[in-house]
Structure formats: structure tokens, C-alpha cells
């Protein structure tokens, strides 16, 4: 349980971080909260020769509202998202999702950028990011690019972040009128990670669904949008939820581990999808 030896660099700007990343290439890794990276290093699943600690790049930790969008810096901790008055007012679902991550120590150190870039198949944020159609800003020595959540999660622990890039910002549209969102999870009993987690964001027109977005994490190798559920609800009223939710696990190769079989995870996905949708609708109506 000792990491392989490495060199440690602490930077105070994105520019310096990018410079080090391009200098060391594949040998270097960004260090944010370290709550995913350090365990990987101790297990020798990751052996970076250089760690670039962005912990002191304070501008990356900011949370602000601009032109109807909520902009969260990649270094914002789970705790700061959970307690931000902007997030609580404009994106309550995201604050709730942050509040369900790990325990207080984890929330004090872990960051949204680290969580999304790491893309643990059982992490909570990816489900919310998908359902909220977040947009990630990636910076590299050549400039910036934006990637939609739907294009961001590629596979197990694999995202659109390229070597040498930093996830500097996550941008969300504030929930508008007629829109409600809920995140629910079945905690793994030991780690607290999502055995299955479901984020549902719905917009109603009258009594019928105008827009439905469901993000599911924990079920398979990566978080995904449950498009068959979304389609099944298009234009329907909330009495269609139960039938639609039964498609939540369709086509997903569900993960099995010592705690939960794939079958159990699939059932959890269906149950939590139904509940999340029902509660999201109740929120719009409230």
C-alpha cells in the first residue's frame, strides 16, 4: 500500500499546470482532492512519475452564475457545491447529489472536476451531469474546448479529457420554471458509492412531459442517459412513469460484484428511475 515514487509539483495557475503537463506528457497526472488518485497509486493501478497539484489554483474553485448558467470550477469541492447558495437556489438537484457523496471528509477534499475526470462507474456526479446536460470546459496549451456531458463519458474510467488537458469548468443551465429534478441512490453499504444512482430532470407542459432526462450511474461500466425511458415518456402524463421506468436497464451490461448481482442492480435502476421521476414530477407541481 505504498505508491511508486513520484515527483510532486504544486502550481498556482492553469497556465503553469498546462506547461508541466505538456513537458511530462503521459508521465504526469493532475492531482486535485486525491481521493481517487491516491488510492489508485497506493494499489499501483496508477504510477505517474509526476503529480501536478492544482489545489492552489483558487480561481478553479469558484462557483458563479452568469447569463442564466451556473458555472462551477473544476476544483470546487463536493462540500462547496452542497452548500453553495447559488447551487441550492438554481440547481437543488446538484446540491443534493453532492450531499450524498461519501462522508464529510470526502466531501471536503473531493472535487467535481476530479470526480468527472476520473469517471468511476459508481460515482454520483456523472448521473446528475448527464441529466442536467452539463457542458465541460477542457483547457489545453492550444486553448479551450467544450464537451457535452452526453459525449464526455466514454467507458470505464475513460472520458473525453485528453492527456495534457484540464477540466476547468462545468457549466449547467439553471432549472427553469416547470422543471424539477431529483437524484436518488442506493449507497454501497461500505464505500458509500452509488450501487445505482439515478438523476431525473423533467419539464412539464400542463400535465404532460415536455422534456425528460434520466442519467444513471453504477449500473454498468459508465454512466449513461436512459434514452429508452426518456422516449417512452415523450408527451405522456405521469401515469406512464412505471411502464417507462421498467426500461431503465435495457441494453446495459450490468455490473456484478460481491455485494450486488447485475440482476439486483438492474432492479435497483428500474425502482430508482421510477421513484426519481415521480419525485421530480411532484417537485414541479409543488
Amino acid at each position, binding site marked *: 500500500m*505504498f505508491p511508486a515514487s513520484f515527483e510532486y509539483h504544486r502550481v498556482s495557475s492553469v497556465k503553469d499546470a498546462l506547461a508541466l503537463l505538456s513537458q511530462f506528457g503521459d508521465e504526469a497526472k493532475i492531482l486535485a482532492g486525491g481521493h481517487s488518485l491516491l488510492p489508485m497509486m497506493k494499489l499501483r493501478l496508477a504510477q505517474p512519475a509526476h503529480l501536478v497539484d492544482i489545489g492552489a489554483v483558487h480561481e478553479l474553485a469558484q462557483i458563479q452564475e452568469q447569463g442564466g448558467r451556473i458555472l462551477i470550477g473544476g476544483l470546487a469541492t463536493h462540500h462547496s457545491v452542497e452548500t453553495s447558495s447559488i447551487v441550492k437556489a438554481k440547481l437543488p438537484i446538484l446540491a443534493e447529489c453532492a450531499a450524498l457523496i461519501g*462522508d464529510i471528509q470526502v466531501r471536503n477534499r473531493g472535487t467535481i472536476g476530479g470526480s468527472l475526470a476520473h469517471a468511476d462507474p459508481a460515482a454520483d456526479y456523472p448521473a446528475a451531469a448527464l441529466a442536467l446536460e452539463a457542458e465541460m470546459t477542457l483547457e489545453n496549451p492550444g486553448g479551450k474546448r467544450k464537451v457535452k456531458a452526453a459525449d464526455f463519458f466514454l467507458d470505464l474510467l475513460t472520458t473525453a479529457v485528453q492527456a495534457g488537458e484540464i477540466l476547468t469548468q462545468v457549466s449547467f443551465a439553471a432549472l427553469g420554471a416547470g422543471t424539477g429534478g431529483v437524484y436518488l441512490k*442506493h449507497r454501497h*453499504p*461500505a*464505500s458509500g458509492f452509488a450501487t445505482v444512482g439515478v438523476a431525473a430532470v423533467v419539464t412539464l407542459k400542463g400535465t404532460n412531459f415536455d422534456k425528460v432526462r434520466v442519467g444513471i450511474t453504477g449500473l454498468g461500466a459508465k454512466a449513461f442517459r436512459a434514452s429508452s425511458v426518456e422516449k417512452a415518456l415523450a408527451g405522456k402524463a405521469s401515469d406512464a412513469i412505471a411502464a417507462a421506468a421498467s426500461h431503465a436497464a435495457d441494453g446495459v451490461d450490468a455490473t456484478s*460484484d*460481491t*455485494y*450486488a*448481482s447485475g440482476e*439486483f442492480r438492474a*432492479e*435497483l435502476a428500474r*425502482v*430508482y428511475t421510477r*421513484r426519481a421521476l415521480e419525485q421530480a414530477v411532484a417537485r414541479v407541481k409543488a
Partner: protein
Amino acid sequence: MAEDNQADSSASFRVIGTRPIRHDGIDKVTGRAKYGADYSFPGMLHGKVLRSPHAHARIKSINTAKAASLPGVAAVITGADLPTIASRTENLGEGVVNSRYISLNVLARDKVLYDGHAIAAVAASNIHIADEALKLIEVDYEVLPSAMTVDAAMKPAAPIILEELRNKEEGPDKETNVANHIRFTRGELAEGFATADFVVEQAFTTAMVHQGYIEPHNAVGIYSNNGFATIYCSTQGTFAVRSLTSQVLQIPEGQIKVVPAEIGGGFGGKLGIYLEPLAVLLSKKTGRPVKMVMTRAEVLRATGPTSGSKIRCKMGATRDGKLVAAEIWMAYEAGAFPGSPVGAGAMTIIASYQIPNFVIDAYDVIVNRPKTAAYRAPGASNAAFASETVIDALAGLCRIDPIDFRIMNAVREGSAQSAGPPFKRIGYFETLEAIKNSAHNKSKLEGLFRGRGVASGFWFNAGLQSSAVVNLHVDGTASVMTGSVDIGGSRASMAIITAEVLGIDVTTVRPLVGDTDSIGHTDVTGGSRTTLASGQAVYEAAHDVLRQLKERAARLWEKKPDEIKFADGVFSSADEKISPLSVKQLCRQLAKTGGPVTGKATINARNAAPAFACTMVDVEVDPDTGKVRVLRCTIAQDAGRAIHPSYVEGQMQGGTAQGIGWALNEEYVYDRDGRLRNTGLLDYRMPTCLDLPLIETVIVEVPNPAHPLGIRGVGEVSIVPPPAAVANAIYNAIGVRMTELPMSPPRLLKAILKRRHAEAEMTNAAAD
């Protein structure tokens, strides 16, 4: 002598029953206390163990040459370095152990019998080199088919795990995995069932679980040229470590000294030995101290656990709620060597009830899993899960409140035990009454999918041998030493008893735990025996001091000792001209009156008395996911006498928490090849404070009539009721009877869905 003691039930105490801060507390919370892994010595080497990756395999050869030649490696040992020893059994207080099997478990010889079985050990200048060296040891295995469960091991064509094993029933020619069959009977079973109006029969399965002590096993061995060995380790019993290590290494007991470290939990799992002989042997080979500390994975793969089991339980009752017959079949996984706690399971399973007719068949079955060790009331939790669930179902059929049903059938003073003489004064009835009158039982439980359950537990408690010495100091303070390792706050209890007898302030008593050279033989801290037996030795040693002090006062005052009165820490005489002396004042006169005063006592306590507990649990079940939330939990337990009530409550809460973990989450998961899959605490799931409500405690005190202070012992019985109590609560919440542990969300959901399908089929059939 101990048997003649009469508990003074009217006694009013000055110190007993108060809650002083524990004497070892400051060092523990400030990190100064030394646990096993904290010991270091000049020139010390670090040892590591190579373990089997197979559940069952023949070792064709072991080549240690490459490992031995790695720079930094000082010695490599294998089973060939250990003497072969004959069977010899010894009672450690929580079951019998056989030193031959202990030796085979310490290092495998011709076969490995479970994933994690030790094969070789290395000593090197640091643990990393030792780890590297393990990788260089070449073992050639012939993998054999394995038997992982009692069902698999009891099949006629099952792979034979220990070729030498025989049992009386099958005879001397029959190879078998059944180490023992025990049978208890009373009355006539068929006649009993014939009088029953209701009969319930169910089959239960419980998973293998680990004790889950936070501190891993550890040992430092120091062998010196004169043939003496010293062992520093965290253990529940220094004298047991000395005796077992002596047998495994064939070093005379008198040449081994065991020094107890502070212990970070044991729960029965640290009664035996694993690393101790290896550390000594490696030290002997290298001439240097050798420290060995297990990783969590090693702890889970190769130490502890307690048995998984299969139990079939059939019971009958009359309409008016009288239990009339019980038929029980039970088989426990012993692990790779004989010695599951199935005997205790059989003796406890219906011990709490007066049942005129029963047959109990119990089987001790070896399987390709780690050798099981004692775990808090070993064998009784599995058993009570079955019997207390069936009793709950019978109470329901009789339409009698489950607490009243238990009261109606409860054993009392004079009732026959399932095995053994009639009960003396016991507190089961009082314990049930306490739960019945508890705030919890009087509270209303409302809401969907919520249910309340109760279950009871019985445990014998142990007596055994203890030694104590009380030294009085010139300033009137005292130190008290026993050989009992302090796991649950026993230092505080020993100080309280000393202070009570001597009439001094408890903060002026220093409680100490001696090593095997400093104190007389003392059996393990286990079997809930420490406060009872070592506490009695302390009580008698303090009285020995008191007797001598009276003599000193008599000498000073030129009186006879029986003319000296002693009350509230003050010596006086009827003679009014003589001014009374406090203990402190008298201590200043010791040199003048004959020198220092030391009191001592040793006992072999035969006055252990049973403990009963009853636990009430409220749960909320998520019927769509199978997740159970424990809303409220109360335990009432008969302590006999609570010396330090906080530590009694701590024992009650700790056992309950472990019992709830056993009920809801904990289990060993093996893959198809017999390899343990969950070797870390992220996968082997113990409850944390986030999973549990505050566990409410009601201490019941029905004094043990055979103990001078009325003590019974409180360490174990609390773990017995929770699995059944939770299962009964789940039943009352959603109408599903769980017969399998753990009742984890996946398992409970499966049971819920099965029931839903069955109901749907019935509705369909009715509609057709």
C-alpha cells in the same frame, strides 16, 4: 471454596455501580498506549507469510532458494521447520483446541486446506523486501477439488479434507469430513408433537462471518541464546499463547514469556495463535527480534471467522401457548480443522425454554475455509436465529404476544437445562419483563413497511482460573495486577472492586495487566469470565490486604485483630481513647508494624452463571429494494451485578451492533474456485455508526447467587438475539419470513419478489 460464596444482594456499595473514567483511557485517546504493532527493538527484522492461493491442494514441492538469496532476507521457514506433534486437546474457555491442528494451521505441511493457509514465512530487513521474497518462493501445487459448504462436505462422495479424520459413529475405517456428531434428547418426540396444535418447521442458512476486530494480528518474537523466548503480542490470553506456542515449537512453557500489548479487539478471534510461533522460529534462525503484522486481507482470509451454518428447526406448541416439542438438526462449518462451536449451538438453541420433548442433532463439519475461532457466545447467534424465529412464528399462530409467549415458556430457577444440571437463580424472566416494560415497547410504531421484532439470547459464561495481586503503597494508594488482558474495560472493574473493599478512592488504584512471568496463571479474557473470575480474585486479594491491615492496626493499638472495626476506609476500635486511622494513615505505619502489605488470591472459578438478553428492534423495509433501516433498538440483559455500568452498556451495545451486522450485511463470499472475494473492509461490510440508531440498554441485575459480588459476566450474550430480532421485525413489517443470513438488500429483495410472484400466481389461479 468459590461455590460457597453467597452474593450479598442487599449490599449497598460505595464504588461498585459508579462510572469512573477508565484508567487506561487517556493513554488510549492520546495515542500513547502501545498496541502490538507499536513494539520495536534494535536490530529487529520484519516477517511476512506466504499464503495459499488455492482452497485445497497438495504441496508437491516448495523451493525457497531464490527467496533466501534475495539481499536483505535473513531467513525463510516452511512447515518442514516445525516439529510434528500428536493430537492433544486443551480447553481455552471458549471451546477445545487441538495443538496438532494448530500446528498444521500455523504452517501447512503436505496439503493446503483453504485460501490463505500459511505455507512459508520470511524474515527480512524490511517488510517490502519480505514481500518481494514471498514472490520468489516457488510452490508446486496439485490442485484438489474442494468442499466449501457443509452440504458439499457431507455428501457421500465429498473430497476428503483431512485424511486422518475419523468420527466415532462412522468408525475407524471411514474417511470423513464430519468431525463430530452430538445428540441431546429429552422425552418422547412423537408424543410431544402429537399434543401440539401448531407446528412450525423451517430451514435456516447463515453465512460465515468475521469477528472484525480493528487491530490485525501481530507478534514480535525474540529468541535468546539461552533458549528462552519472549513474545510481545496482542492476545486475549498470554498464558494460552505461551502454552500453544510451547506445544507447536516444543519449547518448555517455562522458557517462554508472553508480554501482552494493548488489544484492539478480539471477540474470541485472539484466543489462539497464528504468527507467534513463526516470529519465534524466525528469531531463533536469525538471532534477531522478528516482528510480524498481518494485513487486513490476511486477517480475513486466515484468522477468525465464525461458522456459517445450516439449521433445520421444527417446534410444536399447544393452542394456549405451551411449547411441547422440538426437533433440531444443525451443521456448522468448522473451517479446515475440527472445532466449530456447534456443541454450544446445540446446548443453547432451546436452553431458554422449558420443552419436555426434544431431539437435537449437531454436526461439526470441516470445509475448505479458514479454521473458525470463537466469536462472542460462539455458536449461539446462529442457533438463536433459527429457534427464536420459529418461536416468533408459533407465538403468532397462537395469537399470543411474542414477549408473553416467551415469558410463559421461560426457564426459571430449578428448570432443567438441555444439557447439564438444573438452573440456579437466573434472570431470564426479569429480562423479558424489562423489555416488556421498556419505553421502547410502550412506544407506538407507525408508518408503512415498519415492523417491530423481539428475540432472546442465552449464554453460559465461563469461570476458569485467575490470579490477582494487590500491592499497597506507602501513600495509601494501591496497585492491582491480574493476568487478564483488558479488552472491555476490565482495568476499571478491577480498580473499582479494589477501591470498594479497601475503602479508598478509585482514582488512587492503579490497575495493571501482568505478563506471564509477573503474575500467576490466568486464563483467557473470554467467555465473559474476566469480571467474574479475575474480579473475584481481586476481591479476595483486596480482602487479604484488609485482613493484614487489621492485624497491623491491632499490633499498633495492642488489640486483637477481631477487635478492629473497618468501615468507609477507616480503622477503629471500641476503645474510645484510640483515635481512628484511615487506610492512608495506617499505610504510613507499615514499616513500623512489619513491612509492606501485599494481598494475593488465585481461584479456579466454578461459579459462572448464565446470562440472558432480550432485544427489541424496529425496522423499516424498502419493499422495492430490500433495504432495511434499523429505526430503534433496545436490549435488556442480566448482568448479575454491573460493576462499571458504562462498560456493561458498552458490551451490550457492541454485541448488538455486531449482531445487527451479522443480520444485515456481513458474509464471506467465495468464488467458484474457493477463493475469498471480499478480503477488505470495503467489501466485507461491517456496520458503522451511520447504520445504527443509538442502542438503548436496560441493565437487569439478578445477582449470581454463587458469586461474592453477584457478578455473572456480560461480554457475549448481547450478540445472540439481533439476527432473529431483525428477522422477526422484517416479518412484522412486510410479512416475509427470512431464513437466510445476511438479510442484505439483494437477498431480501429476492425473497420479496418470490413472495410477490407466488401471490400473483395464487390470484391468477383463483381467477382461472
